[in-house]
């Protein structure tokens, strides 16, 4: 057995260095020659043998760790989720307590299971119960009756090094002989400090099993991890066997085992801060706002403050902050150190929560004026809005909010985003005739209803230009009305699959004559349908146009008609930081869509436009209700057969107004 074989390099180097130092002292030149011959010979001899000894080391490590794994059997009726069959065969769990506690990947436990059992090393089948999930790390804790089980020995985190041999073992095929795949530790601290990455083949064959070292100690529990780690327990499964797999460090699991057992379900700890978009590299952790009702809001963290420390650890960037918070749980008390723009520092201890209160956007009901004019001039006051009720009028200039002077619309936006509907606020303004006013008013739930804004006087007719993106089969047409100096709203329009001609597109968007918006009409790569690969092309088109033209980043929408509308809803949901508006013409939301989340930093307004003969009205009205309940602003327009205006005219009109405050 030669477990040290792969680590011989540093040892040999060290002894050589020592030898060099010694011999330099004694000036015995011959020693070098002898020594060099000796080392080369040793290496020459061991070379053919090293692979075999490595193999022996692997087998020995597997034999050491195997008894601490159990086979997991889950009986579940089919749920209609696409990956349901993932649950059909046996899986693996790692024993963490001798009296019958085991940890597995949450993906192994389907929601609607009817029975969970573990098969122990001796082949006996024992019923198990689910204690709960660690939602942050997507692991599940199981309990069953047993005694004197061998428990896994965790590798201390400080000993885990990138490049070390790592062996992935699982028991999906057999309750006594584990499956074995050999790789290395590829990276540490993935997913904001949560996971170890390995290139060993990690798949349903070993999810819930262990990543072990050459001594048979456990680095971590194997599982799939993907981008939306908090939403889908099966995200990341598409990377199975591909050389990128993950394990949650065993040392971390053992550290929080008691807490997990007591609290049953562990949730990621949330504080409710959002941060300013920053162009500096690395991005700074400068607070934009705190979600209403969140621990951050309750503690009084203010917009503009910079997070400089978390539990005494220095925070120099937004990434530092994410790493510091990545493995925190609800209920953890965390000390935040903050610094304001005058370099005054303060510290706050805040208890994290598992769920932030649902964010419902609030508003006054005003549409800001465009252009770089002086002051915050109101362009339009929404009928029935709080603004209207206190007598605000188009042309008035806002000067203060909650008794603090307001200097920009963005400042007001941030201030309102930290408040919930029905919050009493004070608004100060100057009328067009120069008269100062100040009133108290209750914020209302922000709406996205259709409003008939006054049309603009424009003279030039829209231009259209086709663009072919180098790496994509998709073309897009850029339709715009001259060159505006002010930032303009933008609509990404998904064309119906199939051939669209430039004339058709130009005709469809001729209404741009009277609107300031830019339209990018993108075609699908395939002629019969939209495919997941098209998303990248659409985002690329958006990126190209955003770089070339001045776009109002508060008014970027995506939309489409019929099946393209459903695709637009998927793209909007997946790219909330890019789109503030979603327009669905004669289309419900895609039924593949999960819940929309609502958060202050990702506002979304959805417009449903339905023509008289649209058959999906029932579905759309359910969509509307669900979206509204989820905290999304919803509006609708109905197109009658004899409507004087085209649907495009209404869409463009609505798009002008989606940044209402």
């Amino acid at each position, binding site marked *: 057995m030669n477990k040290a074989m792969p680590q011989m390099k540093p040892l040999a*180097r060290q002894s050589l260095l020592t030898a060099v130092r010694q011999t330099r002292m004694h000036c015995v030149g011959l020693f070098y020659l002898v020594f*060099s011959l000796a080392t080369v010979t040793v290496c020459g001899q061991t070379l053919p043998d090293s692979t075999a000894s490595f193999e022996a080391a692997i*087998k020995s490590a597997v034999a050491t760790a195997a008894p601490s794994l159990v086979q997991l059997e889950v009986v579940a009726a089919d749920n209609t989720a696409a990956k349901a069959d993932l649950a059909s065969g046996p899986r693996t769990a790692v024993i963490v307590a001798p009296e019958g506690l085991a940890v597995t990947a949450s993906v192994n436990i389907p929601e609607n299971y009817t029975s969970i059992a573990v098969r122990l090393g001796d082949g006996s089948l024992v019923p198990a*119960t689910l204690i709960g999930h660690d939602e942050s790390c997507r692991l599940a804790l199981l309990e069953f009756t047993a005694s004197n089980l061998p428990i896994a020995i965790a590798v201390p985190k400080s000993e885990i090094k990138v490049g070390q041999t790592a062996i992935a073992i699982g028991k999906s*095929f057999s309750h006594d002989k584990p499956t074995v795949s050999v790789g290395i530790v590829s990276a540490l601290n993935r997913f904001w400090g949560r996971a170890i990455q390995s290139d060993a083949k990690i798949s349903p064959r070993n999810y819930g099993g262990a990543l072990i070292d050459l001594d048979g100690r456990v680095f971590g529990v194997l599982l799939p991890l993907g981008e939306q780690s908090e939403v889908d327990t099966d995200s990341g499964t598409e990377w199975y066997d591909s050389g990128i797999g993950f394990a949650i460090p065993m040392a971390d699991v053992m550290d929080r085992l008691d807490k997990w057992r007591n609290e049953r379900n562990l949730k990621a700890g949330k504080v409710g801060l959002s941060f300013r978009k920053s162009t500096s590299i690395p991005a700074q952790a400068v607070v934009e706002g705190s979600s209403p009702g969140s621990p951050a809001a309750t503690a009084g963290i203010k917009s503009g403050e910079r997070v400089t420390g978390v539990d005494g650890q220095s925070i120099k960037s937004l990434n530092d902050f994410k790493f510091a918070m990545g493995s925190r749980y609800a209920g953890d008390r965390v000390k935040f150190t903050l610094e304001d723009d005058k370099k005054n520092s303060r510290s706050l201890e805040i208890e994290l929560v598992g769920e932030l209160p649902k964010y419902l956007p609030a508003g006054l009901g005003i549409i800001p004026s465009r252009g770089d004019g002086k002051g915050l001039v109101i362009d339009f006051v929404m009928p029935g809005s709080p603004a209207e009720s206190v007598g605000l009028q188009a042309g008035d200039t806002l000067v203060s909010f909650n008794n603090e002077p307001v200097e920009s619309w963005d400042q007001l936006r941030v201030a309102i985003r930290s408040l919930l509907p029905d919050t009493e606020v004070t608004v100060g303004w100057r009328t067009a005739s120069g008269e100062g006013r100040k009133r108290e008013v209750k914020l209302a739930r922000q709406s996205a209803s259709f409003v008939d804004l006054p049309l603009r006087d424009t003279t030039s007719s829209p231009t259209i230009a086709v663009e072919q993106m180098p790496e994509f089969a998709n073309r897009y047409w850029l339709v715009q009305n001259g060159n505006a100096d002010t930032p303009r709203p933008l609509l990404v329009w998904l064309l119906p699959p199939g051939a669209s001609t430039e004339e058709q597109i130009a005709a469809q968007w001729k209404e741009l004559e009277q609107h300031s918006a830019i339209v990018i009409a993108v075609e699908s790569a395939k002629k019969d349908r939209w495919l997941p690969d098209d998303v990248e092309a659409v985002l690329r088109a958006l990126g190209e146009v955003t770089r070339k033209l001045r776009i109002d980043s508060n008014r970027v929408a995506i939309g489409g008609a019929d099946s393209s509308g459903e695709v637009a809803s998927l793209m909007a949901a997946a790219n909330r930081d890019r789109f503030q508006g979603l327009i669905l013409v004669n289309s419900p939301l895609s039924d593949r869509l999960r819940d929309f989340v609502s958060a202050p930093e990702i506002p979304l307004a959805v417009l449903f436009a339905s023509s008289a003969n649209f058959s999906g009205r029932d579905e759309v009205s359910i969509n509307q209700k669900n979206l509204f309940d989820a905290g999304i602003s919803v509006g609708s327009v109905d197109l009658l057969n004899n409507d004087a205006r085209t649907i495009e005219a209404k869409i463009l009109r609505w798009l002008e107004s989606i940044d209402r405050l």
Partner: protein
Amino acid sequence: MNALRLSWSRQFILAACIFCTNWLATFVHAQVGLPPSLVANVQKRLVKINGSGGMQGLESYQTGILISADGHVLTVWSYVLDSDRIKATLHDGRRYTAKILNYDPRSEIAVLKIDEKDLPFFDLNKSRVPDAGAMIVVGSNLFGVATGDEPVSVMRGVVQATTPLRARRGQFEVPYQDEVLIVDAITNNPGAAGGAVTDLEGNLIGMIGKEAECRLTDTWLNYAFLTSKLAPEIRALIDGKSRPIAKGRRPDEPMSLSLLGIQLVTNVVHRTPPFVDRVVAEQPAEAAGLRADDLIVELNGEIVPTIDELVAKLSLISRDSPVRLTIQRNGEFKSLQIRVR
């Protein structure tokens, strides 16, 4: 004084040389690579096979394994062989028209013959069943990248497991259900089928199977037939005999739920767990103590997660044999033995 300095610098050069030699050696060492002679021995015992295909996403190539000095080539039975112009190309570029000697569509293996003598070959008598964790060498013409006198591609990996093959292609079950090798090298690629898996001594242990998905995990399988298990079958094929692999035989009088007196819940969804709806009075199941609402978890020690699987497994048991059920009742497992006669 001068001489001493020279000696110092010489020493430094010498030290640097030793350091480099040592470092290079340990570098090779740390990679735990494969000896070149082993790799070459594997490569020259494999052939590149070209046949029909080449359109509609069907590749016209696969790999074959030399198993005799006289040009017997073991490969997988596939549409590639559905041609009267099968070409086999050796590692050194020698090219032959291969004849199909025999094949077995159920095990999906075929033996071809090329007209040549004194070829290097894998000795089937040396095939063994490896342990999980054993390091392996995989040689195959994956993606058809090797042509002419180019040797086939070689990968390294370990044996993940040996396990009965439970696989499908699309909706169709793969007929071979005997034990296979699951490897952690990626072998489920076009052209790899028919390639060799060897141990570190260069002995053949497996032949890569055609692309298939695992029924238990819904993932692509990297698997290889165990040549030690197939050896008798291969010899029979060479001798011109076909020895179909024994499949699970159905008993003349199979067991059934009605014989036991068990009514399960209606099998409505795609995977309905076998919950007992009713136990028929004065029938064997009642006598054994089975009750309504029990969940049948195991049949004769094997998990039966769905009604379909329970029914299928019962049909493979003779009605004369006792049936052992593990049932779940109030979160506890119980074992029952039921006898029909």
